[in-house]
């Protein structure tokens, strides 16, 4: 078993933080772009770039409402995103068990 088995879309620090943060919400809930930015600590440009990658993979959904100064983007985890994160953490757990607690990373 190797790290190559980890989903490359998720296996990046920022995108992993994004998915884990969204996964703490109950199903059917969403986070505004600005609150997500506060929680993750990314610049708006970086955040939207990572979100687009996750959106392209079908892992998150972005719903924009309003326009101009009232525009608000709501971000939510899709069912596919929840499944993908579950699969990623399961694979990660198996890799960690294979490495063992005493082995350096």
């Amino acid at each position, binding site marked *: 078993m190797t790290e190559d088995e980890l989903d490359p879309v998720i296996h990046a620090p920022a995108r992993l933080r994004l998915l884990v943060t969204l996964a703490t*919400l109950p199903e059917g809930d969403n986070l505004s772009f600005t609150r997500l930015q506060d929680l993750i600590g990314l610049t708006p440009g970086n955040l939207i770039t990572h979100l687009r990658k996750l959106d392209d993979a079908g892992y998150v959904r972005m719903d924009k409402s309003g326009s101009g100064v009232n525009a608000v983007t709501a971000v939510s985890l899709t069912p596919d995103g929840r499944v993908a994160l579950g699969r990623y953490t399961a694979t990660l757990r198996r890799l960690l068990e294979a490495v063992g607690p005493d082995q350096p990373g």
Partner: protein
Amino acid sequence: MEDDAGRDEHVNADEEQDMDVQQAAVIIEQARVKAQHELRTAHPAIYVTWAIVYLVGYGAIWLSVRGQHPYHAPAAGAILGVFLLAAVALAVTATVVSRATSGVGGTSDVRRRITYLVLAIGYLGVLALEGALGQAGASQRVLGVYGAAAPILLIGLVFAASAAAGTDWTAFCLGTWLIAVGALSGFAGPAGVWGVLALAVGTGFFALAAITMRRIRS
């Protein structure tokens, strides 16, 4: 306020860097703990303030009525004290919940608004029924028991129903505890009911605060 979701920038190289499995595990744990901490609406501070409302407020009412023979009504100062304590608890609840739910939308938000609406309508119903009982000739003793216990029964029902919908079994247990206490405390009589509720409801909220605190630390 417009968000910056339309803005494009180049991705910082640090954010695309490779990471090993241990680093990934640490990131998952840190992100999970931070999100749960920031988005948590079930905060011990809320439960502690409500525990104080019942323990101190209802306790003060009990002290004001326990020597009344025959029973007539709680002292106005004690009732005012309960309303002041409840106002503080409401302010603490509103502050914690609005901070945690800022930017959060969807099902939970709708469910929370419906719960508040049901509580407000239910409380108006409790007051209306108390008026109807008085008009129908209910004694001060009956009105005393009803006025103390009926709001607790209502809060317990709403708490248990909303907790069950969100499968929060600890809150569900508190809700059913409040239903039982609200239903049975009346047997202590119009004066004793305030003392029973002060202890039973206050202890229930303190227990929920302790369990929530333990969950946060684990």
